[in-house]
């Protein structure tokens, strides 16, 4: 095999008003023909910038400061824009993350494919057309002859990504840069797309640079991997070796933070420091008498349900049907059944992990419990009493305090226009949990420290914090209502792996300390494995399996569960 791509000492800089920002620092990458090289790192690692640099498409005002990029032994760094553009497609192509947005909605697949093929080779329309059909077949689109005439919106997400791959391949490039090609897809489809990429790399001996944040994807298909952090290369080598025996401190910490599918850990060890350095005055700022101990004592006081063997939450035969609302829809529409005859119970003091892909109805279930969605049939019992559905639940209903929720996206779940103090203070104020303003402040400061935030955070606005810190604030807001039941709806899916590990540790600690009952919703099997005592699997609104966590992961019974488990890219290393 010969050397396809040789990047040496690459530095990409962006001038900003704070000074020059180096997105990539002195980076080397080597890629053989037919090799799949993974670039892995958390947000801000500079992975996408590398792809853009190779494509010659660094967005303004960024530029390559030092280094060289050689393709097939020839330097391409100093090519003019026109020469570079001839290279794109012909030698290097790219696959984007979201197949929903990367195809032109107004042109048929035929038009897009044929135009691309004829751009780079002098063939007749008919030849280009038959080549296009052949490519679609190769990328796994059945009935390609008729489907090629369709528009992108007529394809499903996975099929669209196949079209995108066909488009990237149709000019027979030597190198394809795939930027998070499966991040927007469900697990089962992700597996198919990854298999396709692997197959194409071998068969056509195309080099792939695969950019991803997902260690699972890396371990699944890459031959070699580069681990990046803040624009710097941490470690590079054959994938198995880097993942199994990392030598670099960061890589070690990163691997330790990856939730494992094969066994449950009590805690994630060897976690990286929190990303934001806090100065000393920040840490010294205290509210009088506030401390984590005060918070734990305060959380354990107050009215509480005596725990017995009965489940906290018991869902019986729950149906949720969404009707399409429109001005001109008359009569009884069939509606769309988001949940179909779901029965589930959550034992006191335990964590139930609810697994499902997008559209499985897992968030609908959470919303039904908190009263945001009105079920059409069935019953939900909370502490032995039936919960009122939807708007029928009064605003003063006691369960509004006892059931709390932590949302998926910490960037949208906190009100950016209110101080942290007001955000956490709202439930205290609303439920009348504090005697006076002074006590309220003390509680807020203490709770913040309980979730490992400095007390001074209460004076700031959410945008001044990182994603992980925001999620801690969101957890504090849920805790401060003194809930007996907590719903966590994908609480870590918007976070980087190392931050995810921190939040999962925090949730585990809080659960153990306060004996919380938790409904933990996630699409990520490995995360559920780390958190849950019991597991339930939803598919298209139907509960296909429920059971104890260890027995589920050692041998799922339902075929869908088996499929999920087998197709989740596992980081077994």
């Amino acid at each position, binding site marked *: 095999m010969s050397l396809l791509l040789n990047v040496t000492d690459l530095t990409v800089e962006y001038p900003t008003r704070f000074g020059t920002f180096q997105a990539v620092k002195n980076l080397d990458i080597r890629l053989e023909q037919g090799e799949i090289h993974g670039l892995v790192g958390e947000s801000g690692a500079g992975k996408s910038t590398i792809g853009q640099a190779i494509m010659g498409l660094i967005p303004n005002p960024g530029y390559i400061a030092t280094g060289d990029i050689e393709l097939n032994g020839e330097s391409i760094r100093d090519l003019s824009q026109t020469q570079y553009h001839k290279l794109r497609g012909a030698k290097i192509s790219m696959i984007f993350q979201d197949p929903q947005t990367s195809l032109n909605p107004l042109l048929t697949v035929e038009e897009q494919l044929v135009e691309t093929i004829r751009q780079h080779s002098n063939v007749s329309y008919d030849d280009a057309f038959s080549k296009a059909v052949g490519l679609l077949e190769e990328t796994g689109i059945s009935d390609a002859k008729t489907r090629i005439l369709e528009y992108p919106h007529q394809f499903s997400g996975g099929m669209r990504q196949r079209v995108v791959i066909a488009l990237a391949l149709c000019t027979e490039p030597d190198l394809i840069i795939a930027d998070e090609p499966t991040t927007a897809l469900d697990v089962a489809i992700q597996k198919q797309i990854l298999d396709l990429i692997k197959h194409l790399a071998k068969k056509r001996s195309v080099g792939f640079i695969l950019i991803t944040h997902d260690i699972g994807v890396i371990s699944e298909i890459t031959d070699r991997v580069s681990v990046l952090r803040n624009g710097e290369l941490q470690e590079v080598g054959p994938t198995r070796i880097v993942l199994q025996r990392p030598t670099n401190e960061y890589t070690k910490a990163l691997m330790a933070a990856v939730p494992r599918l094969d066994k449950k850990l009590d805690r994630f060890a060897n976690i990286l420091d929190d990303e934001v350095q806090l100065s000393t005055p920040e840490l010294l700022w205290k509210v009088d008498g506030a401390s984590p101990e005060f918070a734990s004592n305060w959380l354990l006081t107050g009215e509480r349900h005596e725990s017995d063997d009965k489940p906290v939450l018991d869902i019986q035969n729950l149906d949720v049907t969404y009707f399409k609302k429109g001005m001109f829809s008359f009569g009884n529409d069939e509606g769309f059944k988001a949940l179909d005859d779901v029965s589930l119970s959550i034992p006191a003091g335990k964590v139930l992990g609810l697994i499902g892909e997008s559209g499985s109805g897992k968030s609908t279930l959470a919303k039904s419990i908190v009263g945001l969605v009105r079920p059409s049939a069935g019953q939900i019992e909370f502490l032995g009493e039936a919960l009122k559905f939807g708007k029928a639940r009064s605003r003063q209903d006691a369960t509004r305090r006892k059931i709390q*929720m932590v949302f998926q996206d910490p960037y949208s779940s906190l009100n950016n226009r209110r101080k942290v103090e007001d955000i956490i203070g709202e439930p205290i104020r609303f439920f009348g949990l504090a005697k006076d303003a002074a006590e309220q402040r003390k509680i807020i400061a203490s709770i913040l420290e309980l979730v490992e935030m400095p007390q001074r955070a209460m004076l700031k606005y959410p945008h001044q914090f990182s994603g992980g810190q925001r999620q801690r604030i969101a957890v504090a807001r849920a805790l401060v209502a003194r809930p007996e039941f907590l719903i966590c709806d994908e609480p870590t899916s918007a976070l980087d792996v190392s931050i995810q590990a921190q939040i999962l540790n925090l949730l585990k600690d809080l659960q153990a300390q306060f004996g919380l009952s938790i409904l933990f919703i996630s699409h990520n099997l490995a995360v559920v494995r780390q958190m849950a005592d019991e597991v339930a699997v939803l598919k298209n609104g139907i509960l296909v399996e429920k059971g104890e966590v260890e027995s589920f992961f050692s041998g799922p019974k339902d075929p869908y569960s088996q499929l999920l488990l087998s197709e989740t890219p596992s980081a077994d290393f």
Partner: protein
Amino acid sequence: MMLEAWRRIKIENEFVYLFLANRVAQLAALVALICILGAVLAPLIAPSDPYDLATFDILDSFTPPAWSEGGNPQFIIGTDDQGRDLLSSIMYGMRLSLIIGVLSVTFAAIFGTAIGVAAGYLGGRFDTIVMRIADVQLSLPAILTALLVDGIARGLLPREQHEDLLLVVLSLAIGLSLWVNFARTARASTFVERNKEYVQAAEIIGLHPIRIMLVVILPNILSPLLVIGTVDLAVAILLEATLSFLGVGVPPNQPSLGTLIRIGTEYIFSGEWWIVIFPSFALIFLIISINVLGDFFRAYLNPRLR
């Protein structure tokens, strides 16, 4: 210490940073400031009072600007057909334009935002009805709506009363033609915010819908409304001038920029160009400066436009 603080603000505060980097916006802010000061302080600094019949003399009429032949240094940019000092008239006219502009935009903003937020948050039938009405209103251009409201007011009110209430009628007429912009923007933004998790978090604990709309959602949608407000202020001033020019706004004895231009047009053929030119430029400068600032706000709030 102060200097150090200012240096930090200059870099860290995006708004200040962008403003300092944008010469055009600075110039616009300066022009707007001069216009506003001139208008606000008109009774104090204007050479004469165009409302006070005793201060002007018909014999001074058609005096050209001071620097041209036959000019009089007392009237820097000349006088109009009744001998009123043009500079004073422009300052008072600017005052009237700004008052009507601010009043009508305030009215449109409050009314439109309230309806838009409610429609976006409550949804359902209320939303459907309100937005259908907005659609109908949108199919009538602002100028037409303002003319119609003014016409209806003329039909309903006796003549004297109509003139007394002129400020209110004009502001209402212009405000009613602008509320849809606010309502649609507020509704669209509320619609986006409503589905965000922080609003759901507030709903779950059972916060009152009014509190959710006012305390939780409203602060998050103010930015686009601010842009609309700036743009609409320019539109409102333009509408007022247009109505006055058409002779259905401010009556000719009250100097508004529109009426001054209207008077001026009668004399462009006879060579008294200054009566139309100076009020026109005053109006144009005022509106351009507001529009430039509006563009700047928009660029600041939508980084993709930069």
